[in-house]
């Protein structure tokens, strides 16, 4: 009981503090700095456009991405089919939009989930220390002692190919980095005076850890999420090239781009791979710009 009233009190203090910090220039300097980074802003705009286009795909394209029409296969771009049609007469524009849904879901979803797992474990273990910390550290070391693509390949062959498995694998291989980051942050914050103070008031570990310490580690976490998103989207494409990605019946950017393996298509039917190749590259580039912008605006040691 006493604890919960204490909790509320600190929540109020924290709220006031946050409101205050918003009005002073600490946060806004970060935002300003981000907005001043022209590349990051352009990246954010294009990123938003692509995400929205994928979400509102049914409005943007009248075609069903799975609708086969054999008699109109491999048609060049036209007014009817903006990006032309593929080998089974499906509309490439619709496929790129719907494929974006899956690819972005895989990329962003896996990045966020692996961040959640990594942070949850990292904060807790980092703050608590002891055997939990030792075990978590060793487990993360095991996952991090493989080159990423090798571990993914190994796990895909063990679990088999499916959308769900792929995301699970991305999370399993991706949480380690975030865990270490969060843990290191916690270790240094743990010794800070305000945390010591909170502890002396008898707040629970959980509360101190997630409510009061975590927000101070948020910016590097954001950077990490964006960079992981970019990496996962590229890995998905690479896996589909190796025939180990999302099953081919689900349109993803990687699966659509995979037709470029056929040199005949590469040479003669540019619209089957060109647009999707550009969209993947531009999307990943934008995500990288955003990540870069975030890093520069939040990390005072990285200037320029």
């Amino acid at each position, binding site marked *: 009981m006493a604890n919960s009233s204490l909790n509320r009190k600190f929540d109020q203090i924290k709220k006031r503090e946050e409101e205050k910090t918003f009005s002073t220039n600490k946060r806004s300097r970060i935002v300003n700095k981000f907005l001043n980074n022209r590349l990051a802003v352009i990246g954010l705009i294009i990123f938003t456009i692509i995400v929205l286009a994928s979400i509102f795909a049914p409005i943007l394209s009248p075609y069903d991405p799975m609708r086969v029409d054999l008699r109109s296969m491999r048609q060049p771009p036209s007014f009817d089919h903006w990006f032309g049609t593929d080998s089974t007469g499906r509309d490439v524009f619709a496929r790129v939009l719907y494929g974006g849904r899956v690819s972005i879901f895989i990329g962003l979803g896996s990045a966020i989930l692996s961040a959640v797992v990594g942070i949850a474990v990292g904060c807790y273990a980092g703050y608590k220390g002891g055997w939990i910390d030792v075990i978590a550290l060793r487990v993360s070391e095991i996952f991090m002692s493989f*080159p990423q693509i090798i571990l993914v390949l190994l796990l895909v062959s063990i679990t088999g190919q499916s959308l769900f498995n792929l995301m699970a694998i991305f999370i399993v291989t991706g949480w380690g980095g975030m865990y270490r980051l969060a843990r290191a942050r916690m270790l240094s914050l743990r010794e800070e005076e305000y945390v010591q103070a909170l502890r002396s008031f008898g707040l629970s570990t959980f509360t101190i850890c997630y409510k009061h310490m975590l927000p101070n580690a948020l910016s590097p976490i954001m950077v990490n999420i964006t960079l992981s998103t970019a990496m996962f989207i590229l890995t998905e494409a690479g896996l589909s090239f190796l025939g180990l990605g999302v099953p081919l019946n689900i349109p993803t950017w990687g699966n659509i781009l995979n037709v470029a393996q056929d040199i005949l298509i590469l040479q003669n039917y540019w619209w089957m791979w060109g647009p999707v190749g550009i969209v993947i590259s531009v999307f990943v580039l934008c995500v990288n710009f955003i990540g870069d912008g975030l890093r520069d605006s939040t990390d005072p040691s990285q200037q320029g």
Partner: protein
Amino acid sequence: MTTYIIQRLFIFFPMLLAISFLVYGGLELSPGDAVSHMISPELALSITAEQLEAMREAYGLNKSFLTRYWIWLTSMVQGDMGYSMAGGVAISEIMAKTVPATLELSLVALFFSTIIGCSLGVLSALKRGSATDNSLTVAGMAGVSIPEFFFGLVAILLFAIELQWLPVGGRLLPSYETVWDRIPNIVLPSLVLALMMTAGAMRYARSSMLDVLAREFITTARSKGMPEWRVNLLHGFRVALTPVVVLIGFRLPLLIGGSTIIEQVYQWPGIGNMFIRSVRGSDYPLVMTISLMYVFVVLTASLIIDVLTALIDPRVRLGKE
């Protein structure tokens, strides 16, 4: 310092052991075994259950999981990597053929990416904020944003098929006698691979150059009236590039794993190529050896980094990891 290294080593081998057990167990859980992959589906109906059983027995696959792991582990410890299941080739022999191929590709790519990355990074830093700086940053980022297989295929289409300047792939030909004959084959794969690495080197070189340029001794040199280019060349580069080169050296493990897809695109007979084949064929002994080799390289590299960082920066102490 010595205690630190000993302590790291104390973790090193149990880690390898745990990983080997996990990988072996994972492979055990995966559907199908080496025998099932030797039978093509088209001809599967013609093989009887007894024949399959006899094959499993001959390959020792019907022993219990722990027994097989123990046999594998004990022979591995004695330096015997065993034999590939598909063709009974000694794994040491396979490694002796594929590891040099991958190293060759990776080192050349590393060389290219370091040269390109560092010079562009330094250029960027010197022209900080200019259009050159910005466009170099964008170009570097673009390099890591294009799916590498796609980039590789387009490069093949352009340089090998349309222009016919370079071979489409492969590493050796019967007519190749000297190292010079082999150069055309390595140009495309290593450049494409290098491009993937350039952005990182460039970013690092740029920021470390900026760092150095702000330091006192540069200001001093400048104030002594030394021409700008000499300041940059003699003092700036040397100091800025040392950490960059060290860093890039440690990226080698990444490069070994990172060449997997490029090896596939360019029919390069390296370790990545072999790894994919063995994973697809459930060739356990081969998968085990190759994965452990990767793990060994990564762990060793991180051990060296730890030790070096500890040597350079005395603030890093044990227990404060």
